[in-house]
């Protein structure tokens, strides 16, 4: 091949690659911009303060926060000890590899499957759609996300930390609680927020289990609304005033999720600056 042709090919490829990035960037900018433009006019205080019967989305916001907070705390109770058990000092490589496989399996499982599974259990136990059922299902979705991220956080600690603490005579439990947990804390918080953000935007798992309502959640056994399902249900109505609730809910959801992502990134960066 002649030199000019090779150079031309190189330039062409560069254009194609840059163009591909440009297309993706424009598509995403368009997506975010359109959600903001459609949602912003409707995101007034009156919308945020009234529940569904008053034409607002407060019930969905409160519902989502309850679901997300409850589920992520519940998931933390399982994910944190599981991640501790997957540290090198606790798990032989064989167990750690098997666990990674199982976690990948659970992580890749679509949330609709978790929803269907939880719905089966609910029918079996005779439970109606409720906040509690939603929290439990969402916790199932969050556990693999959180465990994987927390395992990474522990794994990124320098191995010398363990060696030195062991040399000083500390037991494994003491090192875990007093050294590893403290050193990995920023990573653990990031993992928690990551799972919270994932959970609060998830709709398929709570579709069958949390149900939907127009009111603020009263008790753990009542059905509860959520921002993603608010978008899903209200968008399907032909009435434009009701549709505006969907647009406002979508923007609010986007702000929440992006806010959580940005906070967790900032925390991670800040923590990585002064670390042992």
């Amino acid at each position, binding site marked *: 091949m002649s030199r000019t042709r090779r150079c031309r090919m190189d330039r062409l490829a560069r254009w194609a690659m840059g163009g591909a990035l440009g297309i993706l960037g424009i598509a995403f900018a368009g997506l975010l911009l359109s959600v903001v433009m459609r949602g912003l006019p409707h995101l007034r205080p009156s919308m945020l303060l009234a529940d569904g019967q008053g034409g607002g989305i407060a019930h969905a916001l409160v519902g989502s926060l309850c679901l997300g907070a409850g589920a992520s705390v519940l998931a933390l*109770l399982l994910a944190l000890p599981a991640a501790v058990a997957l540290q090198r000092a606790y798990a032989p490589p064989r167990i750690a590899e098997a666990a990674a496989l199982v976690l990948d399996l659970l992580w890749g499982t679509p949330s*609709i499957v978790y929803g269907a599974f939880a719905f089966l259990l609910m029918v079996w136990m005779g439970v109606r759609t409720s906040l509690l059922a939603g929290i439990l299902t969402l916790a199932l979705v969050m556990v693999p996300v959180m465990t994987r991220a927390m395992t990474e956080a522990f794994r990124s600690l320098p191995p010398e930390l363990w060696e030195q603490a062991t040399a000083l005579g500390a037991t494994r439990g003491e090192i875990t609680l007093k050294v590893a947990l403290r050193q990995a804390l920023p990573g653990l918080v990031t993992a928690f927020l990551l799972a919270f953000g994932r959970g609060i935007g998830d709709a398929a798992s709570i*579709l069958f289990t949390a149900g939907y309502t127009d009111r603020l959640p009263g008790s753990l056994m009542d059905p509860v609304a959520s921002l993603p399902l608010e978008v899903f249900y209200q968008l399907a109505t032909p009435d434009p005033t009701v549709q505006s609730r969907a647009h406002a809910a979508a923007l609010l959801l986007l702000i929440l999720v*992006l806010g959580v992502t940005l906070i967790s990134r900032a925390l991670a960066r800040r923590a990585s600056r002064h670390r042992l």
Partner: protein
Amino acid sequence: MRVDRRWGDAAVTVLARGALFLVFGLALVLGLTLLLRACPMLGSLERSTLLGSAWAPAQGSFGLRTFLAGSLAVTVLALGLSVPLCLLSALYLSEHASRRLRERVQPVLDVAAGVPSVVFGLFGVMFVVPGVAALGRLLGVPTTGYSLLAGGLVLALMAAPFTLSVALDVLLAVPMGLRETALAMGATRWETAWHVVLREARGGLLVAVVMGFARAFGETLAVMMVVGNVAVLPTSLFGPAYPLSALLANTYGEMMSIPRMEGALMSAALLLFLATGAVSCAATLVLRRMRRLG
């Protein structure tokens, strides 16, 4: 004091191992429950009907073939659209872009990967569906816009940040020395990227694509909002499709009222679970093998 410390250590171990055991148990119970509930439909008598194409719950025929085809069609279309774009973008970022641009793009990718699926669905209903309808009119194809193409486009956009960020990680892990060697031999940047970097990274890139597949295959709401949900075998880009996940989401309410419907729907859930599970486990194994070899 000594005894106290030993007890504390043992307590931490037991708690941690117990939680890990519960996570293992969760996977087992999830799989077994779906399998048991799907069993009535998986029996030998029903095998032909389950894989048949007739879906008429009232008449007792629960063919899942249309839905499986719908899932596959929309996923393959989405990957076909997003994978080339993602690979080219990742190559640009790893081979051409300045460090500053790369460092700016990475947080954007994180943020984009976190956008909830229902937001993609909203965007799809507002812009992609009308766009596809307009395109259909332009080409003279009758379409409502709620179509396979709309589903594929929305899903492609959704899978893109995920695929792109995994692909970029893989490309950045290719040793700089390989590039320098190729460039020193007189290869152009593109030749280096194509013959050296891509070849070196192909296993990892395959994993990126495969994980994108798993995500897209099980995606529910975003797809369901734009894909039309008509139970016919997808034949045209502008025609509707009906993926497995949407079937589950739309009909779970009727599950208890129609005999044997539960078994059919749980077979659908089992199919989703097995397909995504097999794919993500395979990806992990490939990645682990590569790490061991490399």
